[in-house]
């Protein structure tokens, strides 16, 4: 009875906070009309979506890709080439980029997922360089190092130039979050988590591990590709180093790890903290390499001290507090089993 009403309150608070957050996110461009703050807003929401997309693969299956910028770049180039060379409608091409990158990822995934653990990391790293050299070398299509210039969006004042892209990335974020949440509740998600635990055991238990991994990989890559597509239209220019950069991939990992790879909102929270933080550092100390050092130290510190990330760590700390104060015996054990049994989507 008592616990029932408590749960009702909990649910109310949960949905209320979510609603409030959504309202804040929707109102952001008008709460902070300064174009630079809007610019940072677009970057932040973009990385929130990218980190969550990356985590769709890594959080669920444990396969860490260091090369997601390859998918980001392929999505960007697909969109750019379609708009410049074939005069296609931009936002339709952004969506098409998701499909194209998904198909691309089927081929890549079919090969790359034959490897595991560190060799998977290395294959994905090599993929970035292969795509970089391809974009540089295939001049007829990509423009080589001169890159491609896209037409600027017509009929929009310069103060508002960032707004449509802010919402495009926000939609992407919502879709990725929803997909992650949905997978976390599905049988498919359970299968992925089994792979993360012990792949051979999962296969022995009858999980079609190859197919499951491939689906997660393709979804993760496809959403990242859409992000690249929006990005290229937003910047209205693309060239190889722009997108096929190790840094973009490392950023996604860093954000997801910081927030927590095993929670739904973890990667997004990581991006929400890191992007404005990095922009601030670059703004204040841009002429030194301090921000690079801090990025490295932060990544190291997370790996050493907080490998679970902020949200799961807070969650278990809260659970310990709870059990200590109320004496509810099941709380702590429940949390531990949560970590093992449940996927990302919570």
């Amino acid at each position, binding site marked *: 009875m008592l616990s029932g009403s408590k749960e009702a309150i909990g649910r109310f608070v949960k949905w209320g906070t979510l609603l409030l957050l959504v309202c804040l996110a929707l109102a952001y461009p008008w709460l902070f009309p300064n174009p630079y703050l809007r610019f940072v807003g677009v970057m932040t929401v973009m990385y929130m979506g990218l980190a969550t997309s990356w985590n769709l693969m890594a959080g669920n299956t444990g396969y860490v890709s260091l090369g997601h910028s390859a998918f980001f770049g392929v999505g960007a180039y697909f969109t750019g080439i379609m708009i410049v060379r074939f005069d296609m409608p931009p936002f339709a091409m952004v969506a098409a980029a998701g499909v194209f990158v998904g198909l691309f990822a089927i081929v890549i995934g079919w090969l790359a997922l034959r*490897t595991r*653990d*560190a060799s998977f990391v290395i294959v994905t790293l090599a993929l970035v360089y292969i795509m970089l050299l391809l974009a540089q070398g295939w001049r007829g299509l990509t423009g080589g190092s001169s890159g491609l210039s896209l037409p600027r969006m017509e009929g929009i004042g310069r103060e508002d130039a960032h707004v449509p892209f802010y919402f495009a990335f926000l939609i992407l974020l919502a879709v990725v979050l929803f997909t992650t949440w949905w997978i976390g509740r599905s049988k498919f998600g359970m299968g992925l988590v089994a792979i993360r635990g012990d792949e051979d055991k999962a296969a022995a238990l009858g999980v079609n591990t190859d197919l499951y991994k491939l689906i997660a990989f393709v979804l993760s890559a496809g959403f990242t590709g859409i992000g690249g597509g929006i990005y290229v239209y937003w910047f209205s220019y693309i060239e190889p180093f722009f997108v096929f950069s190790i840094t973009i991939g490392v950023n996604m990992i860093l954000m997801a790890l910081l927030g927590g790879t095993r929670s739904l909102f973890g990667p997004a929270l990581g991006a929400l903290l890191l992007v404005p933080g990095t922009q601030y550092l670059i703004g204040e100390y841009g002429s030194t390499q301090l921000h690079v*050092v801090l990025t490295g130290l932060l990544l190291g510190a997370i790996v050493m001290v907080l490998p679970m990330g902020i949200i799961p760590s807070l969650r278990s700390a809260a659970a310990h507090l709870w059990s200590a104060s109320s004496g509810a015996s099941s709380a702590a054990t429940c949390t531990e089993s949560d970590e093992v049994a449940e996927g990302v989507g919570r």
Partner: protein
Amino acid sequence: MSSHLLLQAVVLGVLTGGVYSLWSAGLTLIFGVMRVVNIAHAAFLVLSAYLSWFAYTELGIDPLLSLFATVPAFFVVGVLIQRLLLARLRDHVTMMSVLLTTALAITIEGSLGMLWTGSHRGIEISYSTSSFSLAGISFPSDQVIGFVLAALTFFALFMLLRHSRYGKALRATIQNPDAASLLGIKTTTIQGIGFGLGLATAAVGGLILGLIHPFFPATHWAWIARIMAIIVLGGLGSVTGAALAALLMGVIESVVLVTLSPVWAGMIFYLVLAGTLVFRPHGFFGGRLAERF
């Protein structure tokens, strides 16, 4: 395409490959003893290049002499990294160690940039652009020096692994850590020494890098991808395999540069890397690790 050009390309390739073999020996050794892919290996090469450059241009110390400081220092740093950082990782060790060494690489890169800016540097010694020729084939002095230095270091490492007690314990640890510890080998100590030795070779390798190539803080990314391709091709954990693969890749790179194009020469490393991992993860040169890593 003259046969003379092809021969010249092969010679240059062998010289480059010799240097690659020293770089990859350290990386593959570290992988062998710890199953850790040291993404920061090339960053340590660049760090050593910077230290030698600084000692030479600012303090006037001959680059070869500075090795007496950098080699022991890198050894100690290696042991410390293993003891204080890598040994403390608990879950998902292979994955987390990749991220940890990535973090190390980024930190080194940023620190070098803060200290010595992002400008290109190079260790310019008086004899570095001379050359001698044999039957019309040129042998650039800096590359020959690099090759000889690499060969000597590699030989020393090889002898250490083959004929010392530590070497035997090390090789036992590489082949089977569990069995080694049952035999009374302190595998954690051995792993520390292994990491230290790997970085000590990077100290020498970095000096050679500085003598031959221009460098700036972010150059390590291009190099790490190359030497990873080499150790994968050579069979992870196999020092001899890495040396053979390095010579082979040096020659292939050089020959592709003169026959196809520079873009393909860069691409070939990544294609070899991805192709080997996907289709023949144990490499081609008898790496004894019977497991994927």
